[in-house]
């Protein structure tokens, strides 16, 4: 009887120690799980309670429902920048802050006489960066061969706002370049699934209706002059080229290189669906040349589609 009682006591003590072991193991397991969980949270998640750049610069200052309308006399945001004679040089890497434009094709640059066109900066900016910076990323994914159409995209281009997906030739049309530049920057009003945006003539009409948050600036020498003086930054705006057939070809306004105070210089735009990903237009006395009255194929710059 005593032996049985002793054995039962041993069994109970064994069970007690087993239970204690389970509890200790469980607590240890919980600690490990919590530790791993916390370590996998990235920096943004760990500081979610702190104001982000987006909140600080966009959410509280530019509510979509109350887009500020441009005043009749907008203040100057930057002083006029007269660069003087246009810079030239040789080949540059894709990461350089200029494009090297060869005599006949933008990818050659086999001597020191090719024009160096600065990559536009600033301008229209969304939650995922400026429109022009997304255009520069897209240009790097266009075909880089010496001659040929720039109408495919590989690899795909991404931002924190999404990804374009790759495109084979000839499917990466000029309007897709424009739409992707805006979508990647964080503006989703334009869509590649909307026929009215895919056809550039319809996209131009859409812009001319001045939809909320957007505005159309008809072409005039004054528009270039106001851009140069900082009254109306065109960087990242869509530059619409009217073709003689009634069709339209768009690109993204890159930069105006002003050579002198008389309004002479060169306007450049980035594009797909063309032989050159960067086209330049002569500006003489603030007027874009070789377009409206001076061409049969190109009937003129229609204007600039911008974001307010």
């Amino acid at each position, binding site marked *: 009887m005593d032996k049985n009682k002793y054995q039962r006591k041993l069994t109970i003590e064994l069970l007690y120690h087993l239970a204690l072991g389970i509890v200790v193991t469980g607590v240890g397991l919980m600690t490990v799980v919590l530790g791993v969980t916390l370590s996998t949270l990235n920096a943004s998640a760990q500081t979610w309670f702190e104001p982000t750049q987006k909140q600080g610069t966009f959410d509280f200052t530019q509510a979509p429902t109350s887009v500020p309308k441009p005043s009749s006399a907008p203040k100057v945001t930057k002083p006029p920048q007269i660069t003087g004679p246009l810079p030239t040089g040789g080949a540059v890497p894709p990461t350089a802050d200029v494009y090297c434009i060869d005599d006949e094709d933008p990818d050659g640059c086999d001597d020191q006489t090719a024009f160096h066109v600065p990559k536009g900066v600033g301008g229209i900016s969304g939650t995922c960066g400026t429109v022009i910076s997304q255009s520069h990323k897209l240009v790097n994914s266009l075909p880089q061969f010496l001659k040929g159409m720039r109408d495919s995209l590989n690899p795909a281009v991404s931002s924190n706002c999404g*990804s374009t997906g790759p495109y084979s030739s000839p499917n990466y049309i000029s309007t897709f370049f424009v739409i992707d530049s805006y979508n990647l920057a964080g503006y989703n009003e334009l869509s590649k699934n909307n026929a009215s945006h895919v056809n550039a003539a319809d996209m131009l009409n859409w812009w001319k209706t001045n939809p909320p948050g957007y505005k159309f600036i008809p072409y005039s020498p004054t528009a270039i002059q106001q851009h140069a003086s900082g009254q109306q930054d065109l960087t990242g705006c869509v530059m619409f080229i009217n073709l003689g057939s009634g069709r339209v070809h768009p690109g993204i306004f890159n930069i105006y290189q002003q050579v002198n105070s008389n309004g002479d210089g060169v306007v450049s735009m980035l594009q797909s669906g063309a032989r050159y990903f960067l086209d330049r237009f002569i500006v003489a006395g603030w007027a874009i040349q070789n377009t409206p009255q001076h061409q049969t194929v190109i009937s003129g710059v229609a204007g600039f589609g911008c974001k307010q």
Partner: protein
Amino acid sequence: MENLPEFLKGKRLALIVGALIVLLIVLMVFSTRSNNQSQSVVQPTQAVQPAPDENTDIFNDSQNAQSPEVQQAISEQIQADQEYADWQQSNSDAYSWIRKLPLTAVNYFVYFDLEKKVFIGRLYPKTGENVDQLKSEVLNRLKTEKEIPVENFQFEWMVNP
């Protein structure tokens, strides 16, 4: 400790162990939920969204099943782009040096007018500067630096005070 065996007799031990296991499960469930909630909190700040699949076009999720209207619009825009590209090519074919222009300096700006097919020289001579000498410099640079057969073209000079 002496009374422990008596204390743990019967169903008490099973109850305590069971309660501890249940408590452990509850704590683990709570931990999992907290983790999910923290992820949902950061999702709206797009900066911490997981990197999108680069091969997925989220701006055009029906890329392979476009509507007939979109397909028609794409077809039309391909034609428009081709028209523009042909214009680029024809300029390059007719004037292989066109992309070497404009010719710029502090006191002149020279370009080629594609419609008139003449060179436009906008001169800004300094006080006392000889205009003919300036024109000569322009012609020389176009020939030597840009390798343009200037003798085949006319020039329109615009002298600005």
